């Protein structure tokens, strides 16, 4: 968390945004993502980085609930899938342009999350966690039975939808850059929340919800806002991702296994830290990549995730960044 920070600033006013190291680190990461595949038009690298960007987006936003407020959202993938469905539907059936459909999907999912959140956030601990699975399963069942969304067969997008973006080849690059932008926003959002009064309230809730309420933190409202906020960018990312695939179906869109992986990434990188999401995603992807090359190990993906999570929870609950910050406290100021 925030322990060990020394007050190296005059008074309590933090330095302006552009003066903070973290701002530039994220900008660098975005730049690296943007430029690397452009070198030699490396499509394979672009696809790998796109997946990484999606993971980082999902992890950063999950961190708002898991890391700050201390609520486990097992079914966080529902935002991604639902955003994908709404966006694909609006573009395919209603002929909306991508620039309108994706943000609309983000807003719609956010709003629904706010409404549902106000209900299920009254539940504590395990009950909330299970309720989030329920929401994911419920939405998946709905999508699989809802005819306008193609039912269990899913929805396809015709090639024409890529025309406004300059054709299928160019569209893939455009979407890639959009997704990096979403990733960047996610990291900045995570940081902005953490350093805001709202974030402090969330963290207080995560430490001791009852004490936080007695101190005046409007716990119900803040939790619902965090839940809703944590839905927006993943939904947007889902819209972009499934638009790019030109195809969406229930089992892919609402894959609980993906939710679990994102949770492991957050814990691995460091729950409650901003850079943790990025580092965790990178490490996890590397680990998974090297394991998947062997066919036998493909089955053991879940085992590896589980073991990793167990070891982290038992021996290093602060994750990688947590360990780093406790060893070298000064890094916390720079990296958050």
């Amino acid at each position, binding site marked *: 968390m925030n322990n060990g920070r020394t007050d190296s600033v005059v008074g309590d006013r933090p330095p302006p945004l552009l003066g903070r190291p973290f701002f530039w680190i994220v900008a660098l990461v975005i730049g690296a993502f943007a430029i690397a595949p452009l070198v030699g038009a490396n499509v394979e690298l672009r696809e790998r980085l796109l997946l990484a960007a999606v993971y980082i987006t999902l992890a950063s936003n999950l961190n708002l609930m*898991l890391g700050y407020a*201390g*609520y*486990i959202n097992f079914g966080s993938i529902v935002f991604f899938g639902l955003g994908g469905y709404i966006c694909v539907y609006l573009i395919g059936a209603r002929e909306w342009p991508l620039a309108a459909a994706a943000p609309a999907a983000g807003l719609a999912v956010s709003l629904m999350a706010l409404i549902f959140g106000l*209900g*299920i956030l*009254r*539940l*504590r*601990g*395990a*009950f909330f*966690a*299970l*309720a989030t*699975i*329920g929401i994911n*399963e*419920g939405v998946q*069942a709905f999508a699989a039975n809802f005819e306008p969304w193609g039912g269990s067969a899913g929805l396809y997008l015709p090639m024409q939808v890529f025309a406004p973006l300059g054709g299928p080849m160019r569209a893939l690059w455009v979407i890639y850059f959009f997704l990096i932008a979403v990733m960047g926003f996610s990291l900045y959002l995570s940081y902005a929340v953490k350093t805001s009064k709202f974030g402090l309230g969330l963290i207080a809730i995560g430490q001791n919800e009852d004490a936080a309420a007695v101190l005046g933190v409007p716990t119900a409202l803040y939790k619902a806002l965090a839940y809703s906020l944590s839905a927006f960018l993943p939904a947007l990312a889902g819209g972009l991702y499934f638009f790019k695939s030109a195809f969406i179906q229930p089992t892919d869109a609402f894959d609980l296994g993906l939710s*679990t992986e994102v*949770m492991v990434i957050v*814990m691995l990188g460091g729950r409650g830290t901003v850079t943790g999401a990025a580092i965790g995603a990178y490490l996890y992807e590397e680990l998974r990549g090297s394991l998947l090359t062997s066919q036998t190990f493909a*089955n*053991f*993906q*879940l*085992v*590896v*995730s*589980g*073991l*990793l*999570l*167990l070891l982290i*929870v*038992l021996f290093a*609950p602060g994750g990688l960044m947590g360990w780093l910050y406790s060893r070298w406290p000064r890094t916390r100021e720079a990296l958050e």
Partner: protein
Amino acid sequence: MFGIIASIVDGVLIGSVYGLAAMGLTLIWGVMNVVNLTHGTAIVAGMFALYLLTGAVGVPSYAALPFILIGGFLIGVALYWIAVHRMIGRPPLMVLLSTFSVNLVVIGLGTAVWGTGLFNVPVMLPGVTWHRYTFPGTHILAAALTAAIAGALYLFLYRTRLGKAVRAVANNREAAELCGIPTTRVLSLSFGLGVALAGAAGMLIATMFPFTVLAGDAYQLKSFVVTALGGLGNPAGALVGGVALGLVEGFAAQFMPVSWTLVIEFVLFVAVLIIFPRGIFAFART
């Protein structure tokens, strides 16, 4: 008319086994305030234990029960020491993740070994016929064995010294410690009991229905619904809640496709928790 009654009675029989499973969950929850997310996996383990014991080893089906109870208990104790002991007193978030991670590992190993296909343990038992409907012998015997196990649990908790120690620790761990009760041993024993009960329930379910490695999730959810209905730490409430759930399922099966059952149960779960935050019988909040 008779169809509905038959469905309900059958639901009650099956529901009692749900109650047995939930007893394991609620016992662990009540004694050490830990939500055991390996519960579903323990149920599945019971199923596969029956499969292996009857298939590879050739034990006649129901005779496997004592082995599964003992094996489940030992595994539960081991699980306590591996994943739970260090986590007692840590934030609930961490304890949840701990048992969840063990769950991932076991499911991963399970799918690696057995895949995701359907398994079945054929058990031949004559049923009881009433009008045009037959109540399968397996369902009746499962309910009977559930009652027996529940009775044994009651005797243990309320008529033995060790059982009293368990109840004391559930009530107030610090006070129990101060009275000289070895609380850590009691905690590990309770965890073992909880897993044993789940495994036994799994075995009984396997005598009635086919199953997969991934079936644990559905039964774990049922256990949570039952626990929410019956109240935390209340084994008797769990049994009653299980019967109630079985009743609801039996009734609902008449009117809607089975694929919606899970969704209905989730809705029921969330609704019960929000409308009856203290559980229909007692407390349901952590």
